[in-house]
């Protein structure tokens, strides 16, 4: 019963995606093309996020902690 509700909810979310991006009115081959492009772009965005964000966050943290952490030392 729960699995069915989850499946229905996921299908409803897919239906909303189809409606918002207007792939609901496209023919099946156009829909496949559009889904492929969307999934590719999404995958690239996620991969870029995975590769770059942790390193950039660490560098930003180091930069700011150096700026603020360095101050009390020099004041004394």
């Amino acid at each position, binding site marked *: 019963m729960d699995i069915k509700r989850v499946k229905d909810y996921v299908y*409803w979310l897919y*239906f*909303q995606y*189809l*409606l*918002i*991006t*207007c*792939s*609901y*009115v*496209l*023919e099946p081959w*156009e829909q496949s093309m*559009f889904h492929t492009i969307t999934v590719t772009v999404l995958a690239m965005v996620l991969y870029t996020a995975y590769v770059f964000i942790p390193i950039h966050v660490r560098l930003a943290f180091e930069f700011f902690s150096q700026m603020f952490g360095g101050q009390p030392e020099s004041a004394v």
Partner: protein
Amino acid sequence: IHHIVQNGGLYKKPFNEAFEETPMLVAVLTYVGYGVLTLFGYLRDFLRQWKIEKCQNATEREEQKDFVPLYQDFENFYNRNLYMRIRDSWNRPICSVPGAKVDMMERVSHDYNWTFTYTGRVIKDVINMGSYNYLGFAQNTGACQEAAAKVLSQYGVGVCSTRQEMGNLDKHEELEKLVARFLGVESAMAYGMGFATNSMNIPALVGKGCLILSDELNHASLVLGARLSGATIRVFKHNNMQSLEKLLKDAIVHGQPRTRRPWKKILILVEGIYSMEGSIVRLPEVIALKKKYKSYLYLDEAHSIGALGPSGRGVVEYFGLNPEDVDVMMGTFTKSFGAAGGYIGGKKELIDYLRIHSHSAVYATSLSPPVVQQIITSMKCIMGEDGTTLGKARVQQLAENTRYFRRRLKEMGFIIYGNEDSPVVPLMLYMPAKIGAFGREMLKRNIGVVVVGFPATPIIESRARFCLSAAHTKEILDTALKEINEVGDLLQLKYSRHRLVPLLDRPFDETTYEETED
């Protein structure tokens, strides 16, 4: 939401009109959707041009490929690539009388709406939320039908002539006297087609050297009539009296464009109920402005005659005004009277002039006798002259249906445009895929609705338009509301961000009435 303050002098009851703003996210997503469809449209046009795909729409012939292109503008692009994909929601053939319920012929398309075939099955008892059947006179039984059948056996169907030649029947004279009495004017004239009434009579009334001030959202017949007349046309913002007053002032002060001579005539064109917005014209203010600046008023009551006012006499009675203040009262018999045709009412000199100079009177065939009898019977029924209270009951039923339906839809959370008392209810859809999805889902649940998209409305404001009828009982409305609620949840159409306080709970001052956001 609009801050509505009532002026005790002009308006005798609250004027509740609201056009909720498009939520920003919805507007952005609508543009995204149109962007995707445009890209795919370009792709398909490319494939069609390079013959990779079969071209099924109209194109120029081979010999004409070097001429000026006919099908390259945006309207044709939209038609080929967007309208065709959802075309099955329009032009649905019905095969019974369009009353509260109607039978539809089922059709399928195997090549994505380029061609349709009928399966042979008839979908019975589809709840009809799309016909302009405001007082429920679209019937094939009853007093109207019997009277029309009698006249049919007496006069036949064809008139075979124009009004000025041999087509002036005694039925037409009877009809015109009745219409004049119904509206409270001196005289009236009836024409065979409502669209032709506007487009053929405005050129007879105004010409070059006159000024026409027409509302932004006027119907195509008014626009066509105005353009055919050759007068200068200036457009004021929809139902906006400040804009109208500014235009009137400028017209009187500056006169005609180059010569600065005064205008020969200034004619204000407004409609009683605007069918795409569901809004009612601010008639008391228009009449006050008209009297102040000495111009003429042409009121097109196509949707409001029979549908507004305590006894169905239209928007003039709804506001409690004097019909003699409106110079030209035009209306149609198509909507509330269940017939066809249009009329113009006004002073006797005006109508006599139109009898001679109107193009419709000279060239168009006059109304067919059974249709005239249908109008006469239904009008007498509304006026109460047939001895029953059916007419009054219908007018009251329509008013109740309107208030109930609009209140329930607003409570559910849809964005509904227009005035509280107008039987035309536009429900905003915005996204192009939802236009097709709404039409199809409602038909699956046995409700027929009219959805409207680009050329008739601005491109992001597509809507579903419900036309209420006195023939709808409360059970039918409840069924329809339940299905609309379901489809609204399924398609995520409940965009409204206002939680309106129910009107009965809140005490309000008699002279001012405010609606605020909560």
